[in-house]
């Protein structure tokens, strides 16, 4: 087990910058999730920790050892790939024991390690099969088994669940979390799926455009996103954004409606802002009341547990998430109110959070 320190890491492919001055420290035993859209540099960062990509500038340390020039096999890390990267001509047992054999581990020790890992992952009946004869979920398990037999200092996961169907993904997600609880190894997990990030992480690192946007525990990112990107990326259904200007102590939207400025937020007159409000913080109210808006229902999406209601309001498509069934029908006029204490105000120029 180990801590990982990433210091001023920069990566360019040719002249294309991919990562820009990344600083991050991962504590011993921590589960850190790198999340962001495709091309944000999260996989590159992971591969640099693994040693599969060169480091253009900066330093990575595992514990206190600088590993920039250390070969992948000597970094004592294990990686789970999106494609699982199982050796197709080897049995499950051979796949799992390959690294131990290469390290000239004693035969009894290998057998023990494989037995233990197979037991943990429910792979016992599959040990003599080849990957071709396994389902996606089983292959995923073998890939994890291959990682844990070695007791590495750190686990690296590169979108390990992306190739599974939704049901299996949910199941494996819980299994990974359970596994981490029992092994307690330092883990770095890359995904573009914000739900995976929210559910698995001790700490989320949200990345965009080769820059870390925000680091924090999942609920922090959800409750207090540091900028427009994080606000829009974390949460499903996604946050609503309304653009406006500060005029006479209130926010005036482009279609002339007014939104009260939350307490403790100080805006300059004329400042361009974006107001963010999560769909679950928009209420449907019985009739007109102070600060409510009249709108017309555009679309209704039942999700089973709740319902997403789309209305045209404030010059755009606004989503409401409600647990009440049959709260709205298409074309129906209704009144809505925003939860004033849970508004997110962002500066439109810097995109950073004001309050």
């Amino acid at each position, binding site marked *: 087990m180990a801590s990982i320190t990433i210091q001023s890491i920069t990566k360019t492919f040719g002249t294309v910058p991919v990562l820009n001055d990344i600083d991050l420290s991962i504590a011993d035993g921590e589960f850190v999730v790198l999340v962001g859209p495709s091309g944000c540099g999260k996989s590159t960062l992971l591969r640099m920790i*693994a040693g599969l990509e060169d480091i253009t500038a900066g330093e990575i340390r595992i514990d206190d050892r600088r590993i920039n020039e250390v070969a*992948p096999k000597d970094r004592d890390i294990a990686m789970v790939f999106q494609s699982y990267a199982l050796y197709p*001509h080897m049995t499950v047992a051979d796949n799992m024991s390959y*690294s131990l054999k290469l390290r000239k581990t004693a035969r009894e020790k290998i057998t023990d390690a494989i037995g233990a890992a197979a037991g943990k992952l429910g792979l016992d009946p599959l040990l003599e099969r080849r990957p071709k004869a396994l389902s996606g979920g089983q292959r995923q398990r073998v890939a994890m088994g291959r990682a844990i037999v070695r007791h590495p200092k750190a686990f690296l996961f590169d979108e390990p669940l992306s190739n599974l169907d939704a049901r299996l993904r949910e199941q494996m997600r819980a299994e990974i979390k359970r596994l981490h609880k029992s092994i307690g190894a330092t883990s770095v997990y890359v995904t573009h799926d914000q739900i995976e990030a929210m559910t698995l992480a001790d700490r989320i690192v949200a990345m965009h455009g080769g820059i870390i946007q925000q680091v924090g525990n999942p609920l922090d990112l959800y409750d207090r996103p540091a900028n427009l990107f994080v606000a829009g990326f974390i949460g499903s259904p996604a946050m609503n954004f309304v653009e406006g200007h500060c005029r006479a102590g209130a926010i005036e939207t482009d279609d002339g409606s007014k939104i009260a400025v939350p307490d403790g937020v100080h805006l300059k007159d004329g400042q361009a802002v974006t107001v963010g409000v999560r769909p679950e913080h928009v209420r449907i109210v019985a009739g007109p009341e102070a600060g409510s808006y009249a709108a017309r229902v555009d679309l209704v999406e039942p999700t089973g547990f709740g319902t997403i209601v789309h209305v045209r309001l404030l010059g755009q498509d606004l989503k409401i998430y409600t647990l009440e069934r049959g709260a709205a029908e298409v074309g129906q006029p209704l009144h809505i109110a925003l939860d004033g204490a849970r508004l997110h105000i962002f500066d439109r120029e810097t995109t950073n959070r004001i309050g």
Partner: protein
Amino acid sequence: MQKIATRLEPWLYSAPVLILIVAIMLVPLALGVSYAFRDIRLLNPFSGAFVGFKHFRELAGDGAFRGALVNTLWWTFSSVILQFLFGLILALLLNRPFKGRALAQALCFLPWAVPSFLSGLDWAWMFNPVVGPIPHWLYALGILSEPSNILSDPETAMWGPIVANVWWGIPFFAITMLAALQAIPKDLYEAAEIDGAGPIERFRSITVPFLAPTMAISILLRTVWIANFADLIIVMTNGGPADRTQIVASYIFTQAFRRLDFGYASAIALVLLVLLLAYSMLIVVLRQTMLTRH
């Protein structure tokens, strides 16, 4: 009536293809096979009679044919093995990214586009001490005691066409191996690297198993092809000196087009056909057992 029509229906649908296959493939084959049992000499207008197994009895006692069989083995296997080895090395080199790889790839595949007769002539000239550099290089390296033409020395003549054939055939293996190499997922190498496998171990445990099916099938195809491939020998040595480069395929050519004995040539061709069929069956069976074992 209705019953016959239903029975016939599939045959009617496939009739155009069947007729094509019979007309284009089976008729010439049967005709060729029939020649082997007939006395067909172009210079003798009265020939054409059925002679039974006369040609085959003759063949059994024909020392030149036996020599040609041995030469065929020698020619085929050394050509295939060298082509394969160099082709694989070339494919491995071309599989890693470097500047100007696209151009290098195109250049490496160029020999394949050269007509075999032209490359035969080229190499014959290169081995000729009067116009070509190779004898002088070999002399300078101490391999030859004097800059002579290896094609005119019975001991070394076979190496001439083999070298030309290797040069000409490397691209075939390079292309097929490169295609197979590029189909290997890169993740596997990365996973193996993290697992602690060095370059040789990665080659042994990932590259070789992935390439094995392609290797087997391309070597099989190439063996049959080269055993039948007489162009270079005809152009470079014409089977000489003293029949030392005569392979079965070139012997057929000599019998048919120089002595104009089509009957005897067909008999030899039939023997070669049977030998190659036996070889192919052997490989197919081998491949099947290998596949079922996995």
